[in-house]
C-alpha cells in the first residue's frame, strides 16, 4: 500500500529563520508531488509542486527538493513569518496517478 511519512510531526522556528520540512515517500512509481498548507479550520491549500524529472523547484519564499534515490522530499520556507504557522502535508500521486496520498503532516509554529 501507499505510505507517505514525515520525519518530524512538529517544528518550531523563530520568525525570520528558514524552515525545512521533510517527507519520505514509499512508491517509486510516483512521479508528481505536491506540498499543501492547512490552516486551522480550512482545507489544504496548494503551495508548490514538483515532477520526478526535476530535483528542485522554487516559488515565492518556498523551495521544494526531491531526492528520488532515497525517496525524500523537503519543503524549505525562507524568512519564516507568523502567517506560515500551519500544518504542512506532502502528497504523492502513487501508482495510479488518479489520486494523491497524503502524509500525516508537520505542524509548523512560528515564534514571534
Amino acid at each position, binding site marked *: 500500500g501507499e505510505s*507517505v511519512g514525515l520525519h518530524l510531526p512538529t517544528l518550531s522556528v523563530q520568525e525570520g529563520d528558514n524552515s525545512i520540512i521533510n517527507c519520505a515517500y514509499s512508491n517509486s512509481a510516483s512521479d*508528481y508531488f*505536491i506540498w*499543501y498548507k492547512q490552516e486551522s*479550520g*480550512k*482545507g*489544504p*491549500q*496548494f503551495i508548490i*509542486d514538483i515532477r520526478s524529472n526535476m530535483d528542485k523547484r522554487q516559488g515565492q519564499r518556498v523551495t521544494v527538493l526531491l531526492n528520488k534515490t532515497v525517496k525524500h522530499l523537503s519543503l524549505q520556507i525562507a524568512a519564516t513569518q507568523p502567517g506560515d504557522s500551519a500544518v504542512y*502535508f506532502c*502528497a504523492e*500521486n502513487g501508482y*495510479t*496517478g*488518479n*489520486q*494523491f*496520498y*497524503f*502524509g*500525516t*503532516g508537520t505542524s509548523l509554529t512560528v515564534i514571534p
Partner: protein
Amino acid sequence: GAGVSQSPSNKVTEKGKDVELRCDPISGHTALYWYRQSLGQGLEFLIYFQGNSAPDKSGLPSDRFSAERTGGSVSTLTIQRTQQEDSAVYLCASSLHTNRGGYTFGSGTRLTVV
C-alpha cells in the same frame, strides 16, 4: 463558483442516523475527490469521480459509505447508520487535471457522531 463549497460546515448527529454531506466543485473541474481527515491525522482517500467514468470507490471504509455525483457537478457523500468512529472532517476537492496543479479543497464538513 470561485472555490469548492461544502455544506454543512458542521454536523452533529446521533449514532445510527444517516447523514448527507454536499460538495459543489469549481465549475468546469471534471475530477472530484472526497477525503476524510481524523483529528491530527493525514488525509484518507475515500472516492474519486472523473467525468462520466465509473468512480474509484476503493477508499470507502465500509458499505455504509456511498457517494454520487449528479450531472458531473455536485456530489453527495452519504454515511448510513453513523458510528462514533465516523467522526472526522470530510474534505472535498476538485481539479481540472488529475496529473498537474493539484486539487482545490473545500473547507470541509466537520462531522461529530454522539
